[in-house]
């Protein structure tokens, strides 16, 4: 069902991109006449006022929307939660295909942005002067939203990975915090042996987590150059990941609990899930969702594939993009800029978001924040260090949303059957190649 819908939508995407091409043609005509002073148009639009519809699920945007309306009283920001993640992308594609009802600004996760840029269904913000923010954001998120000279979105937050562990459980069983993935496997064995109810972590097959760990291990399975795409899960980084993770699966050292389920929250609360290797946005979720475990958890740098390394990767994080179908693009850009840079970004960081802006990441107040949840630990220092050490040159597929949706049909087998991770990834690769070629990409040719 879901596959069919996605297929249908990608079909629709092709139509949309054709329309978008026509729109681009019109757009260039207009700019020939009106000059290239993008920022000025934005100022005029703010003066004139109007309504901006924003589709986003990020909770801290609410405050930003209020601040924006206060600063520009003529502008009315309508914040709509049109779904979370792929549900919202489906709605967005639907609205674009239907030709009406698309928002002026949309939250799009980094992994999903390619799906919208390849069809040119989001505005290139460089024409509004977004290029000047090249040094404002950290390199990982900035790379994720730019392509050559084009800026397809502005980074809203980021998720440099860190290692969250339940110190109470670790102390009780005398386990040392692992600094390498080999030590991690050892810790997993020791914990599970000490108490069979305890698992080092949960994993039932999560595309985001798997790709992030491959990223950290140095694997670069996806390469995209226009419509030429390469998928290769045979490189050394991927092999490092599968070798380690296969051990955990073979010895049944990871709990068969899906992330974000109620069982997951329960495991995090009662100590039966002892660690998480996840993005730096996790503290907000822990604080609100697992309040009873306050004081038990601590943060450490991610275990390394090679001892002494400091490499990290991004896990999650999203951007704000302006769809081509937006009604009021100047205002949309103004809001996007406000929410992602300067005071707006700082306000969101204060409210608990993890910044993608260098200034916020390096500010003393941010680094010195003591988290009562982590026993007063200054966890942001670890996150900021991780953000500086994110492995470079990672890219996702232009159809990563689809690819992730079939992750469990392929790699997922490794979690429930004798299929190995390597074979699962190979099947995932093959399915991705077939699908990409069907959609008009040139994959692995």
């Amino acid at each position: 069902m879901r596959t069919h819908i996605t297929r249908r939508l990608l079909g629709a995407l092709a139509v949309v991109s054709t329309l978008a091409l026509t729109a681009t043609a019109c757009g260039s005509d207009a700019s020939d006449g009106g000059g290239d002073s993008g920022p000025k148009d934005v100022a005029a639009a703010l003066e004139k006022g109007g309504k901006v519809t924003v589709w986003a699920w990020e909770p801290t945007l609410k405050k930003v929307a209020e601040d924006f309306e206060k600063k520009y009283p003529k502008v009315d920001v309508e914040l709509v939660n049109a779904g979370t993640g792929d549900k919202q992308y489906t709605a967005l594609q639907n609205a674009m295909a239907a030709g009406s009802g698309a928002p002026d600004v949309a939250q799009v996760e980094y992994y999903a942005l390619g799906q919208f840029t390849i069809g040119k269904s989001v505005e290139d913000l460089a024409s509004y002067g977004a290029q000047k923010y090249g040094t404002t954001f950290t390199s990982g998120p900035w790379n994720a939203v730019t392509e050559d000279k084009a800026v397809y979105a502005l980074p809203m937050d980021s998720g440099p990975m860190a290692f969250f562990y339940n110190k109470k459980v670790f102390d009780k069983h005398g386990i040392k915090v692992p600094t390498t993935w080999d030590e991690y496997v050892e810790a997993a064995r020791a914990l599970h042996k000490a108490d069979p109810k305890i698992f080092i972590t949960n994993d039932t097959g999560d595309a985001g987590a798997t790709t992030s760990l491959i990223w950290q291990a140095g694997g670069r399975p996806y390469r995209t150059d226009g419509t030429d795409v390469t998928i290769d899960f045979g490189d050394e980084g991927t092999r490092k990941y599968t070798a380690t993770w296969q051990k955990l699966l073979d010895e049944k050292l990871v709990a068969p609990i899906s992330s974000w389920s109620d069982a997951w929250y329960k495991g995090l609360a009662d100590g039966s899930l002892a660690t998480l290797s996840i993005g730096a946005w996790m503290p907000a979720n822990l604080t609100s969702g697992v309040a009873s475990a306050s004081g038990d958890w601590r943060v450490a740098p991610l275990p390394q594939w090679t001892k002494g390394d400091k490499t990290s990767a991004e896990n999650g994080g999203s951007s704000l993009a302006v769809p081509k179908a937006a009604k009021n693009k100047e205002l949309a850009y103004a809001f996007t800029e406000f929410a992602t840079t300067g005071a707006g970004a700082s306000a969101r960081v204060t409210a608990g978001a993890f910044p993608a802006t260098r200034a916020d990441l390096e500010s003393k107040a941010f680094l010195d924040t003591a988290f009562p949840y982590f026993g007063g630990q200054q966890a942001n220092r670890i996150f900021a260090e991780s953000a500086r050490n994110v492995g470079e040159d990672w890219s996702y597929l232009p159809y990563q949303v689809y690819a992730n949706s079939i992750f469990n049909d392929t790699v997922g087998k490794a979690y429930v059957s004798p299929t190995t991770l390597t074979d699962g990834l190979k099947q995932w690769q093959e399915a991705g190649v077939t699908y990409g070629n069907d959609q008009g990409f040139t994959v692995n040719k």
Partner: protein
Amino acid sequence: MTTSLTSAASGSGTPTAPRTPGAAPEARTRTDARADGGTRTRTAKRRKRPPHTPLNPRPSVPLTLVTGLVLVYTLLPLAWLVINATKDQNGLLDSFGLWFAEDSHFWDNIGRTLSYDDGVFVRWLLNTLLYVVAGAGGATVLAVLGGYALATYDFPGRRAVFAVVLGAVAVPGTALAVPTFLMFSNMGLTNTPWAVIIPSLISPFGLYLMWVFAAESVPTELLEAARIDGSGELRTFFTIALPLLMPGTVTVLLFSMVATWNNYFLPLIMIKDPDWYPLTLGLNAWNAQAQTAGGEAVFDLIITGSLLTIVPIVAVFLLLQRYWQSGLAAGSVKE
């Protein structure tokens, strides 16, 4: 489903037995009891005792056990819901699911559910009420009018209408949702309450039920007598037919109310603006909140919200069930 319901309604005088188990629980139990008694009483014992009538069935221990089991099975989720609505987020994660946590947060939970996110739950509740009153109410009115007309008037094309209605009953609403979305999108009606209300007005099943019910319960002689006495068609409908149709009307109203109250898929694709969400979508949006970076997990509010969501529909059932029963029994003493 319909057949058995109407045959049950038209009474035991009808020689044909229900082909499928009835939609109403009463009808089903009674049919089962009869069938069960029939197979087991084919022994010699049967002749020594006076036969058990359907109204005075033979007490059966296995049957009571099975019924009890089904009762527990049906009530267990409800019990879980009530129990867990008394827990806060920590209690939900720490305590055993089928028993109470140490301290009760029931009233606190209700208060927080109603006030969370500027009281958006109340807004969703009012939206749902609007959809139910306008959608299910409208659907019932249309079904009663249409069913009565089809049952009492003979006009060319009646058989064609019959075929279309039967065909429409067979098409699931889910299959029509996407075409409906594209149509409404072209008319610019998506993201408005109309997108939910208008499709809810169409209830082929309700129309069919009313049609059959009207054919059974409104005697042609009565209508002819009214006409001879000089009553106009409208007056005949409102003063004579409508009271006779009441039990059927309530049944259709109940069906469409439940369907509209629980409707999820149609609003899901039609409505993006949380201000127009019905409760089903709203609760799901809260649930999705726990699955996002930086989102707030509000499992306690979702559970309390779910409990609040089912209370009105349970109340409607309890209040209207006597009409429904009288509807089922209505035909049994006729002629």
